[in-house]
């Protein structure tokens, strides 16, 4: 067991009951990791495909699905405009923005390898709202008094400009299979 597994296991214990219906999400709780972008238009959640946005593939072996769609596996707890639709990608910010240093981390299951990955939802900051691919999945979201598990907070708070542009879903670790 490496350090990440240990951290995630510890964090996950308290949230076992939060395991998603869809069975692929648990979320790291409390002050260890967490936080998130901007919560969003309630009508735009979980749908695949946005009009006027081209389909994508990540191009990475074993990384299935469409990073420009709200149901892409990494977005199991994302909340905001998808950076992959905004000149960035699931793993990078668009040119000219700054990746927020504070973030929250969700655990998403990759349907291809069955492993649970730690996904860091870093916001990209400093340009106006991207306006494309508004996506909101609230699994594991907790109220503002648990800030590092809350997605109503603008996590650009640590960036040079706190103006929110879009949200990434970065793979930063792996936890292993279901347990």
């Amino acid at each position, binding site marked *: 067991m490496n350090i990440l597994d240990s951290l995630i296991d510890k964090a996950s214990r308290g949230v076992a009951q939060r395991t*998603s219906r869809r069975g692929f999400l648990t979320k790291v709780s409390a002050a260890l990791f967490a936080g998130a972008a901007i919560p969003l238009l309630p009508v735009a959640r979980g749908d695949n495909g946005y009009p006027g946005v081209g389909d994508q593939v990540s191009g990475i072996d074993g990384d299935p699905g469409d990073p420009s769609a709200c149901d892409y596996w990494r977005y199991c707890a994302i909340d905001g405009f998808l950076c992959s639709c905004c000149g960035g990608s699931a793993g990078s910010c668009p040119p000219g923005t700054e990746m927020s240093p504070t973030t929250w981390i969700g655990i998403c299951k990759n349907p291809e390898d069955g492993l649970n990955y730690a996904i860091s939802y870093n916001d990209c900051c400093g340009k106006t709202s991207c306006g494309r691919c508004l996506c909101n999945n609230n699994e594991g979201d907790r*109220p503002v*008094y648990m800030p590092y598990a809350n997605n109503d907070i603008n996590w650009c708070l*640590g960036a040079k400009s706190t103006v929110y542009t879009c949200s990434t879903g970065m793979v930063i670790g792996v936890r292993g299979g279901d347990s």
Partner: protein
Amino acid sequence: MKTVLLLPLLLLIGAVHAQVPLDKVPTVDTLPAEYPDTWIFAHDAAFYSLIAGKVAIVDVAADTLEYKGAVGAAQFATFNESSTRDELYVSETFYSRGVSGERTDVVSVYAKDSLDKIAEVVLPGDQRAMIVTKPYASRLIGDDEFLIVYNFNPASSAAVVDVAKREVVNEVSLNGCALLYPTGERGFTSLCGDGSFISIQLDEQGKESSRFMGKSFFNSESDPVFDYPIIVDGIAYFITYNGVIRPLDLRGSEPAAMESWSLVPEGSEYADWGPSGWQIIASDGDDMLYVIMEPGRFDGSHKSGGGHIMMVSRSKQSIVGSFEPVTPAFSVIYVDAEEPLLAVTNVNMTIDVYNTQGEFLRNISIGGSAMPFTLQAKR
């Protein structure tokens, strides 16, 4: 420039055969300094242009001229109406170059009648909490003499603004606890991550006069309360993700949890229902609560909005009725007027108005791209 010079001439010209009288140029409308009971404040969170939000003043009882005006509300702003001064307060953040440059946090003060900006109080420290608009991120306390503004950077504190003096008179540490629920004579309570709370009273100068640490009154891991309660006669009715009402008595300086009860007890027809939305609970100030709910509760279903508005009796501690809004509801407030109303932001981000029997009366848009997440009734 001829245009400008000619206009005064035009104004002198009578309408020889006209039936329609001439308008006076310029004319700018004003509002009453005391707003009618049916006017509400609809806060556009403006996700598509976060630096350009607004708070619209809307008469939800009107079938005509329902939109009364608006004030700006930039970058995850908060809004408050004074009940003792004819003023409105917007706590907001600007950058010198729109989306970049130098940051300035301020409380903008507007006159209720003219909607002119009459003062500005700069908030120090670049620490104003930026959260998608929530009513309890700033509140007026005491005799509305202090505006308290929640800070999160990510340390949490409360800025205390003396609204008469137009200055920040104190900053109160919140020990990592969040939001500001008015409490006691001149104080507030903040909720902490473990389900406990902290209650602070201020003196007449805005200095901290007492601090009370309250024990956990809910399990934040297994069934957290929404951070939006409705406060009735000093009692905050919190509701949990799983539909349990957990009242907290905020009337004194040492708040106490009261008996909790479930809206959706096991075995009941609502056993798998849950509250869902943004402002998920409202009160008529008497016995009735209104709660936005949706069947098929699951982890993550708490913020989608609900297709049902449940009428809940505080005395009976149970659901006593319900209605289905014409469009699923996201936020609901009770409008305490001669004919009381429910104002509902629906999931399409327009406002539906119902009477308290759930009869749909009208739909109001506050703008093509507006997203009025938060509604506040006249105080």
